């Protein structure tokens, strides 16, 4: 029996199909210049579209209640997207705030979004993560964007 499709599956398979179609288009252009350069990319992209398309086969779109009954729905629909937005914002702000300050903001957003409300837990986690991040950075000898601050 076909199971209900979840939003994650729609996003994943559609993403794979889009990547595959972009691959087919560009690798076909490569093949017109040099057959061997585009051969493996073309075959791979085509197979990606086929396999991602086939993954839709055993699924059908239905209402969210059925999906929850099937156990397909994630526990919290809003937490992960907020953290994803925080991660993208982290990338944009890293050159302005510096790695450590930007990371501190990211940690606060992730912890509070996850439901951690206890001040001591937040403070200890914040200090510990930043300290380990600093030590790790020193160990690797890397220059982080704008250094410490």
């Amino acid at each position, binding site marked *: 029996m076909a199971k209900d499709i*979840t939003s*994650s*599956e729609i*996003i*994943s*398979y559609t*993403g*794979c199909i889009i*990547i*595959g179609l972009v*691959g087919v288009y*560009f*690798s076909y252009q*490569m093949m017109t210049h*040099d057959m*061997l*350069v*585009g*051969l*493996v*990319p073309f075959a*791979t*992209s085509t*197979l*990606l579209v086929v*396999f*991602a398309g086939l*993954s839709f086969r055993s699924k059908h779109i239905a209402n969210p209640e059925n999906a929850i009954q099937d156990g397909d729905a*994630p*526990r*919290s629909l809003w*937490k*992960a997207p907020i*953290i994803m937005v925080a*991660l993208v914002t*982290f*990338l944009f702000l*890293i*050159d302005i705030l510096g790695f450590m300050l930007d*990371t501190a903001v*990211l*940690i606060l957003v*992730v*912890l509070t979004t*996850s*439901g*951690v409300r206890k001040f001591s837990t937040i403070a200890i*986690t914040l200090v510990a*993560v*930043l300290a*380990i*991040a600093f030590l*790790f*950075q020193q*160990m*690797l000898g*890397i*220059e*982080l*964007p704008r250094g410490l601050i």
Partner: protein
Amino acid sequence: MLWDIAHALFDISLNVKLIGLIALGAGLGIFGGAMPGLSAPGALAISLPFTYSMNALEGVSFLASMYTGAQYGGSITATLLNTPGAPESAVMTLDGFELTRRGLARKALQGAIWAGFVGGLIGIIFLVLLLNTAAQEAARFGPVQYTALAVLGFTAMSSVAMGSHIKALAAAMLGLLFSLVGLDPISATPRFTFGSPDLYGGLPLVPALIGLFAVSEALILAERGLFMSSSEAQKPVRFGWKDFLEHSRSMGVGSAVGLIIGVLPGGGASIASWLAYSLSRFVSKEPENYGKGAIDGLLAPEAADKSMVGASLIPLLALGVPSTASAGVILGGFELHNIVPGPDLLTTHSDLVFAIIAALLIANFSVACLGFALIYPLLRVRAVQPAVLGVFVLVLSLIGAYADNGIKFSMVLAISMGIFGYFLRRANVPIAPIILGMLLGPIFDQNLRRALIASGGSLAPFVEDPFSLTLLTLAAVLALFVMLTPMYKRMKLRRMKSPA
């Protein structure tokens, strides 16, 4: 030769500094291998400059013990956090993490130590026995054989996929496509670079690996917030002698695969661990349990990983050809001390070779002892709130990604891959085939093209060469096994349902 190694072993046991360095190397290796984003070659590369101040024996022994430790370390995070420390540990997430979910992390980690110890010993024995002859045979490998090896790797990967083989194949194609980004190494034609200079060098593996495994795991951990399933409370179940004997077959299979793949230049640890998993499942009496917490699914790849250490030193010491990235860093260690590994090494520096083998033996014992000592503190990692653990994983992953080449693009890639990886995992699309696709992609693409150019477009060399034919036949058998097993199960089910 055995007498020489025993003599070297005795000498080393009297050298406190060297014993200390080997133990330190093993400990740092376990730490480096366990760190998401800091793979075994990465950890070795970071430590390479520290060997300047050591002599050749100390430096190479230190690196070799780190290599041994890192091979075990990768399986710790794969088992406990579903985040492999290294690409070759990806397969261990399938059953290792499932065991942790069922509260059997202690048994899984103890089993992994035993499997690694047995695999490591077998690898060293193999190194001693075949150092002179086997590497010379492996050096005859050409593009045809490498292409066949990559085909076998892809088939093995699809055969180990749980649930949907279609999803695994889609993931593998995605990984293969990612590996083709950048300047084509044969004709320097840009492929899928979209005019971005950041992409000319290709998609860097380490940030991609960190993103797909670690960042996506951090997102899932953060999403779970304060929730900690009661089933994750770890039970005091140990891996005893009875278990050891019961699962010795999977350790033997894994060790054998590690020996064969380890000696092949460029074979790669990932292929060995996937093949070991696949073959172990093939010979298992209960293949349906694989992916659902079968301890054999953890022991076979672990034994393969560790037996590879000894086996990979055969082409390195006898021919100067590293078969894995970690062996390549050890080659750098030799060069730092103006020693060129190759056929002459056994005559000019035979003492050094025997001492390195003896050091490897001690490193194997050190890793096992340290592994057992670290189990209790490691199990505490699971007791941390998922959200807090997610924050640690996230921040260390971001630094690890940035450390790869020191550009912001690596962080961008890790986060993008992490977000995509999150949705893939939510859709039950396996992540490991993507990584294997990225590792096998360049081997497959370049060698296929070289083979086709050499043969004038003919595929005949692939069936004319006996080794290539053997590998391709094995791939075909595995593919048939994958296709026929569900059909056989359906037929069996139909027969059971149909009235007599």
